Structures are given as C-alpha cells and as structure tokens.
C-alpha cells in the first residue's frame, strides 16, 4: 500500500525555527519528532545518528537538505516523515551540500512502504521556490500547507 507524503507527516512531526548545536542534535531532534508521532521507537533515533557516523554524511542529498534515517529493523513502527526547519544551519561534513537547515527524518517498516512519499518529497524539493518557501515558513501549519500541494 502506498502512503501519500502528506498522510505520512503527523503535525507533531513538524518543527520550525529550532536551534541546535550540531548535526547530531539536528538528527536527534528530527528522530524524536518521529517518536512523538508514533512512527518510530526511541532506539531508532540512536540508529539514525549511528548511520551518519558509520556511512558518512551522504544523507545530505542537496544543498542544505538532509534526509537522515535508519533501517526498518532499528525500530521503525510505521511510515513517517518529520520536517525540521533550523534557524541556524549546521554542518554535517558534506563535501558539496553543507550547511544544512532543512532536515527530513523518516522511518519505514519496509524497503518499499515509504518510496512513493519519498519520491513526492524529492520532486517537491526540485523546485527552488518550494525550498525557499519551506525555509521561510513561520509555523508548522505553513509547512504542512506547502507539502499539501
């Protein structure tokens, strides 16, 4: 069953204007927003951080944009995306795309359950206007409205 992007983002998983010290704190927050919405267990958050430590900052897939995640067996409960808009960008150590101010954490119980929603997100992020609008969002509702379309 394919899940729509908008349906995969719980309102509790959106945070705008957060201030964090470093990439670990950013990933931890993006992960805890998934836990808040019931999409992942606590241990999933640690696995998200471990993934970046072990495999490097490849999750920074575009300038300023990261999609941290872990494996289904690391405590994913259901398909969920979190949206974190940082007030001050943080460096992940990425070669081309640092610093990061948009963090989309996600959890998925299988290798396929989330792909339609992830593709939708990636297509949304292809438009510079959309990315600018996200960065300028004042509230969580603004973010949800943008991703509605």
């Amino acid at each position, binding site marked *: 069953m394919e899940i729509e992007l908008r349906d995969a983002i719980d309102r509790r998983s959106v945070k705008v204007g957060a201030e964090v010290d470093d990439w670990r704190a950013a990933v931890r927050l993006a992960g805890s927003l998934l836990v808040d919405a019931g999409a992942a267990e606590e241990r999933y958050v640690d696995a998200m951080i471990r993934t970046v430590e072990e495999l490097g900052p490849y999750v920074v897939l*575009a300038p300023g944009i990261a999609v941290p*995640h*872990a*494996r289904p067996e690391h405590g994913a409960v259901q398909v969920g995306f979190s949206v974190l808009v940082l007030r001050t960008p943080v460096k992940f150590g990425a*070669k*081309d795309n640092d610093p990061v101010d948009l963090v989309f954490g996600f959890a998925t119980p299988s290798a396929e359950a989330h792909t339609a929603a*992830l593709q939708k997100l990636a297509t949304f992020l*292809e438009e510079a206007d959309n990315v600018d609008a996200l960065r300028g969002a004042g509230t969580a509702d603004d973010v949800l409205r943008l991703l509605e379309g």
Partner: protein
Amino acid sequence: MLKVFAVCGMGLGTGVVLKSRLKSALDDAGVDYSLDVTDASAASGQQADLIFTSAELADQIKNKKARVYVISNFTNRQEINETVGQALDDIDAT
C-alpha cells in the same frame, strides 16, 4: 546491456531518489540498461559498467571495471541528466 548501479548507504533514502532520476535520464537516452540500488560494498564486488553515487560514498567503492560518477545534488535533474550523458559518452569513447 549496460549494467548500472545507484549506490547509497542502505538503499532506502538517497538510493530510492537517485534510482528514479537515473531511470528517467537513461530512458530519455534510449539505451538498453539494467538499474539496481545497492550499497558501496556490494557495488565493489559485482560486475557493473556505470555507478552513480554521492561524493561521500564514491571513495568507498572499489570496483575494478565500472566507472564511478558523483552526483552532488539529488534534486537537480539537470545535473543528473548531464552526468548520465557524460557517462554514456565516456562509454562510447572506449
């Protein structure tokens, strides 16, 4: 047939995004290909012609035969199309 890998950490995030974009670019180019998502260690050990990945993972790929191409921005279709075009030109030239 060209054997193409999209390499990412786990095959769940960036690899999923990269695969769909590579598929569009390769379809547009009209070449005969197979395309799979894999991780860096699997990509190192298997036979392939072209490998696309991020700058961070490119260093971890030790494939004797395949050419490895780096994509910086996975949301930039133009960069992906141009990189695929370059890769196909390179193959033709050999």
